[in-house]
C-alpha cells in the first residue's frame, strides 16, 4: 500500500490575481486575427464602414487590452487556484461521481478530424462520429434495458426535461394532458426531478421519506390518481439508500395510468448489476459526464442521455442516428413527425459522446461492472473509516448498506461544538481537498455531508480523506474558531458579506456592474 499522506503543510496557489480588466493598457494586443488580404480589401473596400447609421458599432467593446503572455499567465494562475477530479481526490462531490477523466480522451477530441467537423457536413464524411453515437446508444440500451436513447440533452436536468416533454406529448396524444397534470417525486431525488417537469408545465407532488429514510409507498398510494402524469425518481436516492420497493412504486403509478421515469444520476453503482427496465421504468437518463468518465468542465458541457421504451421513441428529439443495415452506413433521421422537436442544437454535446464512447469501449463489459462494484466497495470501505470520526453518523436505514454514496450528518457535533457542516466543508479545503457537497435544499438531514468515493479513488485516497475529517472533527472541540474561520490555506478566504449577494444595490455579476455600483467609477 502506498503512503497515506494527510497534507498538513498544504497550501493552495494564491496568486492574489487582479481582474483581467485591471491588467489592461490601451493599445496592447493579445492576438491578431487573419486579415483578408490586399486583393480582397482593394476590391470591396471597408465594408463595415458602409453599414447604416445605428447598425455600425460606434465605440469598440471595452474588452481588456493585454498581451498574449500575460493573458496566458493570468489564466494559468486562475487554473492553479482551482481543484478538479484529476488534480486531487475529489470524492467530496456526492451525487456528482467525480471520477478520473482520462487524458487520452482529450487527445482524441482535439483531433482536427473531430474538432473541426461541422454537424451539417454530409453524413458520408462523419461516419466515424455517427458510429460512436450509434454504438454508445447501443451500450446505454444494454446497460438500461430500454429500447432507444437520445444523446442530445446537455445535462441530467435537461434529460429530465426532455423526458417531461415526451411524457407531455404522450398524454396529449391520448387526450389526457389536461387531466394528467401532476408529477410525483421524492425529496431525496435530485431537485431537477421536481424542477424539470415543473418547467414542462406539471404540478409537483413531493413525497417525504418515511422515518427510516426509505421512500414511502403508502404515501405514494395516497397521492396517485387520474391526475397523475408521471413519477420522477432517483434510485439509489441521494442518501445512497436503494429503494427495494422500486418496482412496486412503478406498479402503483402504472396502475393509475402514469408514466415512470428513472433519474440515473446515481447509476454508476448499477452498471451490469440492475437495469432500469427490469424495475418497470418507461424512461430514464444517464448523466454521461458522471457515469461514463467525461470531464465535468466546471459544470458542463455534459450529456443527459435519455432513454425510453419503444412506445415513446417516436417522440424523441430529431435527428436520431440510424444505421442502414444493408449498407452498414449511418445516417441522421430528421423525418420524425411525432418528435417533440429540438431540445438542443444539432447533435448535442458530441465531444462528450466521443469521450464516453472511448471510455466505455476501453472498459468493456467487465470494466463497466468493475466500475459499479468498486464504487460500492469504495463507499462501504470509506464508511468503515468514517465510523472512527467523532460524532459523525448517517441516519436512516439502520442495518442496511449504502450503495455508492452516503448522506452523513454532523448534527451531533454541531450541537456540542457550534461548528456546522458549512464550517467543516471549508476547513477540509486547508488539507488539499475540495470542499464537500452538503446537500441540496431543503436540508432534511441536518448538517449534511454527501460523499461519493467512486471507483477511481484509491484506498490511500479514502484513508487520507477520512483522517482529515477526523482531524477537523477534533478541531471542532479543541479549536472551533480555526474551523469556523476556515479556509486559511486556500486560494481565497471566507466571504465577509453573504447578504450582499442578495442585495440588488450591492451584487455585481460583471466588472461593468462592479465598477458602476461598488467602485462608483
Amino acid at each position, binding site marked *: 500500500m502506498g503512503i497515506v499522506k494527510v497534507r498538513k503543510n498544504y497550501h493552495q496557489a494564491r496568486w492574489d490575481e487582479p481582474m483581467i480588466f485591471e491588467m489592461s493598457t490601451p493599445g496592447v494586443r493579445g492576438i491578431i486575427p487573419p486579415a483578408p488580404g490586399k486583393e480582397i480589401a482593394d476590391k470591396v473596400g471597408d465594408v463595415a464602414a*458602409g453599414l447604416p447609421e445605428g*447598425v455600425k458599432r460606434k465605440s469598440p467593446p471595452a*474588452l481588456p487590452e493585454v498581451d498574449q503572455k500575460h493573458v496566458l499567465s493570468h489564466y494559468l494562475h486562475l487554473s492553479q487556484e482551482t481543484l478538479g477530479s484529476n*488534480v486531487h481526490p475529489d470524492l467530496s462531490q456526492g451525487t456528482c461521481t467525480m471520477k478520473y477523466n482520462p487524458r487520452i480522451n482529450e487527445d482524441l477530441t482535439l483531433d482536427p478530424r473531430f474538432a473541426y467537423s461541422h454537424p451539417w457536413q454530409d453524413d458520408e464524411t462523419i461516419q466515424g462520429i455517427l458510429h460512436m453515437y450509434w454504438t454508445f446508444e447501443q451500450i446505454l440500451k444494454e446497460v438500461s434495458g430500454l429500447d432507444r436513447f437520445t444523446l442530445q440533452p446537455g445535462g441530467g*436536468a435537461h434529460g429530465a426535461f426532455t423526458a417531461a416533454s415526451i411524457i407531455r406529448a404522450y398524454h396529449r396524444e391520448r387526450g389526457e394532458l389536461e387531466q394528467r397534470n401532476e408529477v410525483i417525486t421524492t425529496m431525496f431525488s435530485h431537485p431537477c426531478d421536481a424542477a424539470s417537469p415543473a418547467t414542462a408545465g406539471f404540478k409537483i407532488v413531493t413525497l417525504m421519506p418515511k422515518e427510516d429514510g426509505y421512500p414511502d409507498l403508502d404515501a405514494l398510494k395516497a397521492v396517485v390518481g387520474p391526475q397523475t402524469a408521471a413519477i420522477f425518481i432517483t434510485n439509489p436516492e441521494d442518501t445512497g439508500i436503494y429503494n427495494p420497493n422500486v418496482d412496486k412504486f412503478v406498479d402503483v403509478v402504472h396502475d393509475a395510468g402514469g408514466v415512470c421515469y428513472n433519474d440515473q444520476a446515481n447509476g454508476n453503482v448499477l452498471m451490469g448489476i440492475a437495469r432500469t427496465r427490469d424495475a418497470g421504468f418507461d424512461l430514464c437518463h444517464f448523466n454521461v459526464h458522471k457515469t461514463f468518465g467525461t470531464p465535468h468542465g466546471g459544470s458542463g458541457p455534459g450529456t443527459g442521455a435519455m432513454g425510453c421504451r419503444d412506445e415513446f421513441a417516436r417522440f424523441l428529439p430529431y435527428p436520431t442516428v440510424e444505421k442502414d443495415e444493408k449498407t452498414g452506413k449511418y445516417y441522421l433521421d430528421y423525418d420524425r413527425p411525432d418528435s417533440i422537436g429540438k431540445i438542443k*442544437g444539432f447533435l448535442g454535446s*458530441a465531444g462528450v459522446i466521443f469521450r464516453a464512447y472511448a471510455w466505455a469501449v476501453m472498459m468493456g*463489459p467487465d470494466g463497466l461492472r*468493475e466500475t459499479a462494484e468498486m464504487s460500492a466497495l469504495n463507499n462501504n470501505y470509506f464508511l468503515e473509516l468514517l465510523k472512527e470520526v467523532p460524532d459523525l453518523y448517517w441516519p436512516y436505514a439502520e442495518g442496511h448498506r449504502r450503495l455508492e454514496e452516503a448522506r452523513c450528518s454532523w448534527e451531533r457535533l454541531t450541537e456540542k461544538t457550534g461548528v456546522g457542516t458549512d464550517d467543516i466543508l471549508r476547513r477540509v479545503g486547508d488539507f488539499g481537498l475540495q470542499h464537500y457537497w452538503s446537500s441540496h435544499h431543503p436540508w432534511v438531514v441536518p448538517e449534511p455531508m454527501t460523499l461519493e468515493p467512486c471507483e477511481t479513488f484509491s484506498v490511500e485516497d479514502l484513508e487520507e480523506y477520512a483522517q482529515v475529517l477526523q482531524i477537523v472533527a477534533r478541531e471542532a472541540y479543541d479549536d472551533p474558531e480555526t474551523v469556523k474561520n476556515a479556509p486559511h490555506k486556500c486560494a481565497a478566504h471566507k466571504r465577509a458579506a453573504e447578504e450582499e449577494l442578495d442585495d440588488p444595490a450591492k451584487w455585481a455579476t460583471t*466588472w461593468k456592474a462592479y465598477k458602476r455600483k461598488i467602485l462608483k467609477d
Partner: protein
Amino acid sequence: MAEPEVFPYIPNSVPEIRQRMLDKIGIESVEDIYKEIPDHLRLKSRLNTPGPISSEYDLKRHCEELLEDGGNGADCKKYIGFLGGGIWNHYVPSVVTTIMERDEFLSSYVGEAFADHGKWQAQFEYASCMAELLEMDMVNTPTYDWGMASATSIRMASRITGRDAALYAGSISPDRLSCMKNYAWSAVPEFIEVGFDAETGLIDLDDLKAKLSDEIAVFYFEQPAFLGMVETQCAEIVEAVHAAGALVAVGVDPSSLGVIEAPGVWGADIACGDVQGLGIPMQCGGGAGGFVATQDEEKFTAEFPSLLFGVTPTIVEGEYGYGEVFFERTSYASREKAKDFLGTMAQLHGIGAGVYLSLMGPQGMVELGEGIMQRAAYLVGELGKLKGVKAPKYSAPVFKEFVVDFSGTGKKVADINKALLKKKIFGGKDLSEMCPDLGQSALYCVTEVHTKSDLDALVTALKEIL
C-alpha cells in the same frame, strides 16, 4: 478462469487490495452490499457491450481509424467549409485550447469560491467580457446553447410581463424556434410569426405592429438573422414593441459585435446567443454554449434561472471573493418553485470564450468583424456573377452568412453540394427542406479562416458544376 483484470482507471481493482477492503468491511463479497437490491431486480447476465480495448494505444488507433474512415472522413480543415447556421468555423487560438485543457478547469465541478477561486474568477471575467461586448450588465453562466438561451429568454420575458404569447421573426433559425416552442410551452403556448420583406429580408414593421397586443410578452428576432440579414430597424422595433408593453429579445452573433452595434445600446431588453464562435472548436456541434444577458435591474435578475456569479468581499481586505447571486431563484435552492430548472450546462465553454475575448481585445474584435465582412462581400460579389445564382437572396446588409438562391440554375442544392463534396468543398447548408419557401437555396457562411484562394476555389468549382 481468466485472472481478474486490473484496470488502469480503477486502482483498487488489484485482487489483493480488493480482498483487504472486503476484510475491512467485514463481508465476503460485493454481493453482500448488492443484497440491498431484491434478487428479482438483479441482472443475471453479463453485459453485452463492445470492448475492452484495454491498451491506450489500441484505443487511439481504433478511434483514429473511425474518424479517418478509410479516407472518407473529412472536416473543415481538410476540406473548405461554408457551413454555419449556429456552429461556425472560427479560428481557435492556442492559448484558449491550453486553458480549456487545464485539468484544473476541465475536471472540476461547480465548486466553492475558495478552493475553486480561480474558476469562479474566470467565469466572472467571461461574463464581464460578454457584458462589454453586449453593453449589458448582467450575463448568466452559460446554458446549453443558443436554442436554450433563446427559449430561456422567452420564459423570462413571459414572467416579467405576465403575458403568455410571443412573436418571432420569420427569419430566425427553425431549429431554435422548435427548441423555444417546446421549452416555453407551459408559459408561452402561443408563438406567432412576424414576416420579413421578400426583397430586403428586413423585418416587416407593419406586420409586427399589427400583431403586437397586450397579450404579447416578447418579440424575438436575430441580428444578424439566421438567414444572414443584418437588421437595420432595431430602434424602430424597440419603439414599437415597448409601446405595446412587451419586451425585445434578440439573438446575436458575438463575433459580429466588433462592427455591429451592441444590443444594449439600441435598447434590447434581453440578448442571447452562442459562445461557440469565440474560440471553441466546432466539435460536430458540441462546442455550443448559450448566453443570456440583460441590464442589471432586479426585475430581470429575479427571472434568470441560471447561476449568476458575483464578486464580493472576503474577510481579507482587498481580496476578491465570489458567490452565487440571488441563489433562491434557482432550482438548486427552491426545487420546483424556482425559475425553470438548473443543472450541468456549458461552463467550460464560457471560460474558453472569456480567454478568447481577453486575447482579442477591442481591436481584435473590430478587425475580426471587418475582415469577415470583406470576405463575405467579396464572395457575394463573385457568386452573383454566376448565371442563375442570386447571392445574396436578400438585399439587406450581410455579416458572415447569407442565402444563395440557386433556383435559377435549374439544379438542386443537394446535387450541387454532392458535386462540391467531390472537390473537397462543403457547400452551404441546403435550406430546401428546412425553409421550403426559399426554393433551392443554401445558407453560406464565411469567416476569418477563409483565404481568397478558398473563396475562389468555391467560385471555380461552382462554375464547373453549374
